């Protein structure tokens, strides 16, 4: 038997834990708050690295040091964001399926994830040559602008989910 995406969302929506979370007036807001704070951590730390690439902050610190020491914090935030996000999604899976803001957010998340992957395996390989440069090469700055745009979009789309009900 094959299950469509919508049927999966319906099934998930009606599972015991998802229903319990949806109906809880205490746990749901707590998970939602944790999710919001985790996104703030992710975007805040990613933005610091992006702004370094653009030569706006921390110009005198090497790019590899800034990225290497700040991005682990991003991953912590990302883990919390993912787990809390999956919980929130499960609780409102059926609503989310139809929600345009939610769909947009997923697309933006995929792109925001792809961006550092491409960056890491292409331009970042030559970081030794521009590690100390206040202004990094054009492609690095492009990746930074893309990242800032995509993550801002994720915040906007994420917040908009609640406005499409």
């Amino acid at each position, binding site marked *: 038997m094959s299950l469509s995406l919508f049927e999966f969302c319906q099934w998930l929506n009606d599972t015991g834990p998802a229903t319990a979370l949806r109906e809880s007036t205490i746990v749901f807001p707590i998970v939602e708050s944790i999710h919001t*704070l985790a996104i*703030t951590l992710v975007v805040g*730390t990613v933005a610091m690295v992006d702004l370094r690439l653009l030569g706006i902050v921390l110009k005198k610190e090497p790019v590899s040091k800034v990225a290497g020491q700040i991005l682990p914090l991003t991953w912590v935030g990302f883990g919390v964001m993912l787990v809390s996000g999956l919980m929130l999604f499960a609780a409102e899976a059926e609503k989310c399926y139809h929600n345009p803001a939610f769909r947009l957010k997923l697309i933006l998340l995929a792109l925001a994830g792809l961006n550092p992957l491409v960056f890491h395996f292409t331009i970042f390989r030559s970081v030794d040559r521009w590690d100390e440069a206040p202004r990094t090469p054009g492609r690095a700055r492009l990746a930074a602008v893309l990242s800032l745009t995509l993550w801002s979009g994720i915040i906007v789309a994420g917040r908009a989910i609640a406005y499409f009900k």
Partner: protein
Amino acid sequence: MSLLHLFHWYDHTALAAVMRKSTWAFAVVEMIHLIGLALLGGAVLIVNLRLFGVILRERPADRIARDLLPLLVASMAVLTVTGILMVSEETMKCYHSTAFRLKLLLFVPALLLSLGTHRKLTRSGGPPHSGRAMKLAAGLSLVLWLGVGVAGRAIGYL
């Protein structure tokens, strides 16, 4: 003029009327507020974790603090303007909201501590501060800012 009068007056301004009437004005302002929050959070986190000796240990703390100050001030300005705009939509609710009051009570010491730490760091010009007092201030600052965020989110629930 008492605080209550101030909120009453603000509640009756044309701005408040516009904010209440529009469906998307509040949403847009709130989104900008959240992006500002992320930037402020990032800057505050980097400076305080550096003071704590968790990240960028080999780099001078005063330089990092000085370098991130413009971002801190800019994001603070965005947060203040958007925050005041958001209050206009539900002025009296905010006035009576425990979460809103708590947020402001935490915000004032958080901001003062951040600015005070910055002053102390950049004025001395000596070797990097990593004394116990600095670490305490950094930890307290992180807790206070986290509290501001949590209380801010709670305004929507309480």
